[in-house]
């Protein structure tokens, strides 16, 4: 009787944890590298900036938010600066 309840609570907890993890903007170093790759792409073809963002499922607003988030973190901003050169 108790086993199904425990299992259901465990599943619910897992779902909550996953949704919390996916909720925010990119936050791991990999995301910084991805942002740096997008930045390099835009620098290479400035006229296609909007199209490049669309290709990566981003809007101007979400891209600005990502830039702010990276800038606020010393390590991320350093990593982004080096990776986007």
């Amino acid at each position: 009787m108790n086993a199904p309840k425990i299992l259901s609570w465990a599943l619910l907890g897992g779902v909550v944890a996953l949704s919390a993890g996916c909720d925010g903007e990119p936050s791991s170093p990999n995301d910084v590298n991805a942002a740096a790759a997008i930045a390099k792409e835009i620098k290479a073809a400035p006229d296609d900036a909007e199209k490049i963002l669309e290709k990566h499922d981003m809007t101007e607003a979400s891209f600005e938010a990502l830039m702010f988030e990276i800038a606020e973190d010393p390590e991320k901003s350093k990593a982004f600066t080096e990776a986007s050169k």
Partner: protein
Amino acid sequence: MKRLHALSLHLALTLPAVALALPTVAFAAPQGKESSSKARILAALDLPSQAHALRESGVSDGDVKAALKAAKKHKVTAGDAAKAMKEAAKAVKENGPVDNFGAFVQSQLDEGKRGKDLAAAIRAEHQARGKGKGKGKGKGKPEGKGVPDGKGKPEGKGTPEGKGKPEGKGAPEGKGKPEGKGKPEGKGKPDEKGAPQGKGKPDKGGPDAKGNPDKGGPNGKGGKGKPGSKGGKGKPGK
């Protein structure tokens, strides 16, 4: 009738001009939007790099974060924030960092300053309150040298010279005190006027004045003029 003719003529002249102008306006608007969107995205790319550069220049992470949060709160674009950070990093290099940079940016944004105005305010703040101007590219060296060299040496030289010379001169004055006896010299003044004084001095003043004119003059103890003239005058007066 004349009015109708005038109206039709007016319309005939103005309508084509309006018709020609409309397409240019209609096409100009979207072009502006595109370029501004592109410019905003390109400017936003700089924000992480400028924030990193500002930290590297010596501004604390807390101040950088506070400035960025204030920018987000006031809906400043990432591009404008990047320009402000760039200006701040430049100002720090020239004038040194300021205390509470984040709070300063917050206050300027609260006042409604944006773009160039914000950059100018940041520059002015660093010029006024920047710490460690001397740590800069070389501005400090001249200042450092100027203070000790300019002030120290002249002062050092001045005091000894000032003291030495007056003391040397003072000594004769001390000798001159006895000449105070000469105060009655006042009486001698009238004698000065009289040409014969010179003759009288050697006779009466001779013994008394010997010390003053003979020793004092040539020896230079009392100064030539003062002792000599006083002694000679006063004593004869007595």
